[in-house]
């Protein structure tokens, strides 16, 4: 047992070194309490649904989410819109389908099985429309940024007037949390820019939190299932380990040696 405690402390030491090295250029992000963190972390459904509203009404004008489908909106562990609601949401978008019997492409209302409609045809079109900067796809955005949810949450609220002496080009904005502090995206949120269907006050802070929660789910749609299964798996392993430990003691008691 003693060896194992030592082993674990060595392991912890190594992990400390590496997590420290990863976090070396860490910034102090704004903090908020995320409901999905921790052993039993779950998403806040209301927040996810509001976050989806922020995404469609604000972000989706420029940012695609190409790995998500409308059916995901009604799946378990997500915003959990009802199937009817998800169908209605899908039907409010037009997708190009085809070719039909005459060999022509046609548009039709989207169905549950369709992927989220993209704001631009392709990456080049997106760049052209945004001054050369490609608004990144948001499907896995949270996992693609070092600071994760805290970074996105802070960035959305990090717009400030540039410090004196800093020269910003046309179409470039100052953001406290952006790498290099220069960002092409103008501040996307302002108080009351949208009206929440559930009556929540749409402050910048609230919207940032909701949309970040939504993005977390989009990047990690099985997070709740993972937490649930993880807890069961670890409890199971602890029970089995205990049983094996006592079996081992019994077996080794036949020879005079300490284990």
């Amino acid at each position, binding site marked *: 047992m003693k060896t194992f405690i030592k082993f674990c402390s060595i392991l912890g030491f190594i992990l400390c070194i590496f997590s420290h090295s990863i976090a070396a250029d860490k910034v102090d992000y704004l903090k908020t309490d995320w409901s999905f963190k921790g052993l039993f972390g779950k998403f806040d459904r209301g927040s996810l649904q509001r976050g989806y509203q922020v995404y469609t009404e604000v972000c989706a004008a420029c940012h695609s989410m190409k790995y998500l*489908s409308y*059916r995901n909106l009604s799946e378990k562990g997500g915003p959990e819109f009802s199937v009817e609601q998800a169908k209605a949401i899908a039907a409010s978008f037009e997708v190009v389908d085809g070719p039909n*019997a005459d060999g022509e492409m046609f548009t039709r209302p989207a169905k549950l*099985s369709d992927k989220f409609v993209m704001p631009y045809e392709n990456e080049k079109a997106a760049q052209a429309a945004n001054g050369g900067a490609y608004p990144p796809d948001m499907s896995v955005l949270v996992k693609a940024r070092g600071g994760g949810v805290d970074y996105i949450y802070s960035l959305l609220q990090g717009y400030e007037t540039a410090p004196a002496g800093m020269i910003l080009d046309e179409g470039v904005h100052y953001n406290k949390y952006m790498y290099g502090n220069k960002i092409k995206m103008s501040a996307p949120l302002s108080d009351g820019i949208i009206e929440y269907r559930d009556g929540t006050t749409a402050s910048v802070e609230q919207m940032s939190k909701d949309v970040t929660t939504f993005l977390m789910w989009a990047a990690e749609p099985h997070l709740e299932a993972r937490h649930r299964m993880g807890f069961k798996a670890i409890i199971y392993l602890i029970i*089995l380990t205990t*049983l*094996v430990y*006592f079996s081992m003691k*019994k077996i080794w008691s036949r020879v005079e040696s300490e284990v």
Partner: protein
Amino acid sequence: MSEKNTKRRDFLFTATTAVGAVGAAAVVWPMIDQMNPDASVKALASTEVDVSSVNPGNTITVLWRGKPVFIRRRTQDEIDEARSVKMEDLIHPEKDEDRAKNPEWLVMLGVCTHLGCVPLNDKGDYNGWFCPCHGSHYDTSGRIRKGPAPWNMEIPKYEFVNANTIKIG
């Protein structure tokens, strides 16, 4: 070692083995289940087919869930032939009325129930379909009449959205 002690040890080993076996089984399931149809396949949309251009006596074939679906606009002769067959003459007795709700239209999976080949139109001894792989003959209702196939060709779930459009699935 006392009797009691031995028993407890046996119980301990049994319990350990049993708990271990349960865990091993639980681990095997995801490895098996990953081969089942995934969420995107299950959600696959139904197909809508425009049948306005199909004349009586003609068949069109459309793809649904990776399989061919025969949509035949039957002539009156074919309908009469299908409906006059006696049940006891059938290998897999099914009424034509149950297979084609709208007698003019026969919608069925174009897959031979023997080993999955696609039968040929307007062939065979019963004026319906003939499977070239192992010689199964189907009648004008897609019912098996002769050959190794055990069942009639399957009717998928479908509905008429309007007079000219059939939605399969």
